[in-house]
């Protein structure tokens, strides 16, 4: 597979992430911050997002398994996850967290459990897609090309 074809594939893939709503404008902001001084900024932030999300989802699962659910603690964890997803532009994860916090406020255990499953699902999807995008980038760089910097579409 040649460099041009890989670059076109990367562009099409990234465009679909925006069109399907997985990513929003904040992700473009991260790409803006990446420059000669910060060549791996996006990967670092996204990796940090993965670590935080894994930990938070584990804590949420544990908190909701207790007999007497501590909704204040659950809300704190969901708030953290919402902040992280918002910061990197993971739009669908953020929206799931917003719904999640509303049910925490109502102290509705069943609804919270359903939201937890939804958040987990959205997180897994965006994680897979971001990992695929990063693999494409690595292949382009390995083949001697450069990551395209012009995303001419507007969702």
């Amino acid at each position: 597979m040649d460099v041009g074809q890989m670059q076109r594939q990367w562009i099409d893939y990234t465009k679909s992430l925006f069109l399907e709503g997985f990513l929003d404008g904040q992700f473009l902001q991260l790409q803006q911050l990446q420059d000669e001084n910060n060549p791996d900024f996006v990967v670092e932030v996204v990796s940090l997002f993965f670590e935080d999300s894994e930990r938070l989802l584990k804590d949420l699962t544990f908190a909701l398994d207790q007999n007497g659910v501590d909704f204040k603690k659950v809300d704190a964890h969901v708030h953290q996850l919402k902040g992280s997803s918002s910061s990197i532009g993971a739009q669908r994860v953020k929206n799931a967290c917003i719904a999640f916090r509303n049910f925490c406020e109502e102290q509705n255990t069943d609804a919270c459990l359903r939201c937890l499953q939804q958040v987990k699902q959205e997180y897994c999807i965006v994680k897979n897609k971001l990992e695929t995008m990063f693999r494409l980038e690595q292949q382009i760089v390995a083949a001697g090309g450069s990551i395209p910097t012009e995303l001419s579409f507007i969702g």
Partner: protein
Amino acid sequence: MESCNCIDPQVPADDLLMKYQYISDFFIALAYFSIPLELIYFVKKSAVFPYRWVLVQFGAFIVLCGATHLINLWTFRIHSRTVAVVMTTAKVLTAVVSCATALMLVHIIPDLLSVKTRELFLKNKAAELDREMGLIRTQEETGRHVRMLTHEIRSTLDRHTILKTTLVELGRTLALEECALWMPTRTGLELQLSYTLRQQNPVGYTVPIHLPVINQVFSSNRAVKISPNCPVARLRPYAGKYMPGAVVAVRVPLLHLSNFQIYDWPEVSTRSYALMVLMLPSDSARQWHVHELELVEVVADQVAVALSHAAILEESMRARDQLIEQNVALDLARREAETAIRARNDFLAVMNHEMRTPMHAVIALSSLLQETDLTAEQRLMVETILKSSNLLATLINDVLDLSRLEDGSLQLEAATFNLHSLFREVLNLIKPVASVKKLSLTSHVASDLPMYAIGDEKRLMQTILNVVGNAVKFSKEGCISITAFVAKPESFRDARIPDFLPVPSDNHFYLRVQVKDSGSGINPQDIPKLFTKFAQNQSLTRNPAGSGLGLAICRRFVNLMEGHIWVESEGIGKGCTVTFIVKLGIPDRSNEFKLPFVPKVPGNHGSTNFAGLKVLVMDDNGVSRTVTKGLLMHLGCDVTTASSSEECLRVVSLEHEVVFMDVCTGLDGYELAVRIHEKFTKHQDRPLIVALTGNTKKVTKENCMRVGMDGLILKPVSVDKMRGVLSELLERRVLFESV
């Protein structure tokens, strides 16, 4: 036949009547016979006469008529048959000839009348030709006179000679008794007798220019007959005994003198005329003829042309003399300029060789010294030495590039810089020198002055340092005040800078800096010399040892920055105030992030906007903290992060100008703000505290304001949004985004 020979002695009445008939017939016959003789005589006398045959016929007719009357003499008595036959024959012939003659005359009379008419016509034509021949001769003579006069008048370009020659030649050609020329006086209100043909002393004799006779002459381009008794013609008593000669006057057009700027010519602002008066001899029956008047008019025109030529020549001579003088002066100035250039080049060479190298050594060694272990006080001194050395090196470079300043090729290096920091730096550089002389130094930077500006920071600082440095240098005691504020349009209405009235706009403003000292002051007469480069005047007490270079460079820098600089002083010992105004740009505040997707901007765009700004970010969310830190570093900030309130409280210091904190985690953020306020309660310049939140509730804003935060920003924050936020915060020190 028998004939009676008896005659009675007494005649009867019938015989008397018959005698009368005898006599009449005789005379008729005599007349009839004489007419042909007359005709023959006159026809012979005439050279050409047509119709000779008709003449013969007419003669025969006349003769026959006479014959019939003659024969009647014998018909009064009883006559013979022979007489009767002769009588009948004669009458028949007469009838035939007379009828023929009558018929012929019908054809000949019109021709005879026509001949008469042609003769009359030819006679008239001959008379006319005689007159024309006379006229041609007269005109030829007039033309000859005109050519002679014109040649004499225009054979010179000297006004006096032109006018004198005109009068002499006219007098000779026209046999004049007197000829005079009246010129307008300087006021233009009188005519002055300037030249005469015979009178010796005409100067001083004047007449008002508005006399009716003068108006009459000036309003016509022909020669005008005037009375011998009018003032311009009564030049002296009559030379003759009985009557003066006829007089004419004609106007002579003069130049539009203002065009030629002839100073010794009578000055008038509009077209004017001289008056020429010509007098025929006294006691003569001569009158002015038409051709003589025409001659006078032509001569007047020629005089006007000759005078204009003379004026042009005089002006050319004067211009040539003036150019010669100017060339001498220019040559002298050129030699002086060459000397000055050589002197300056020598000076610059010395500057280059003898000052630049040591200065570079001072800078290099100061930089090395800065890296060694020093106390805070020593480090501050070394830093001051380094900054002053760098500034001095810049000054030396500018002196060496003075030619670029002079011919306008020096370009300012515009960039965004912190205007408030610039004044702080000036103060830090000047304070040590001022404290040594025990001068109090105050600085006031108006609150409405923008925090950041676009311009040549180095040149602006150099200008301010030059002005403040002079104030310190020439003050033995007292105080020096520095004031900086935005110049308002009304403050430009200053008599010192009448042409300087620029108007601020959305992307630029005018900075006004005023430095006032209580030093030695300046003599107001010497103020203009302050800005002259390399000029030293021993009487200038303000510059006893200096070269007068600083203010000259300051003026050039200020002019390059589209501004103005001036000095005021009430005199020696009364202190001095230096004020300058420069134009600076206002950094653009981009619109806040609103689009879901934006194109990526160049990586280093605006990266130097907030170089060195110390910012502390408190956020317990690692991802958010990392993104915010990356964003601020991208803008050039010096970022410290804290993941908890305790850590933030431990790390925050006066060095931080802004603290960003996340307030989404319960009450931790608000408590932290209160603690920070308590920590810096005794200091004026505590850090700005700005809340970062994703919460759009109104109560969040109210809580932030209640605990004394300076701002609230909604997350997520884009690059452009953060840039605008920082600019506004540092400018107004408060920013609450609408929620």
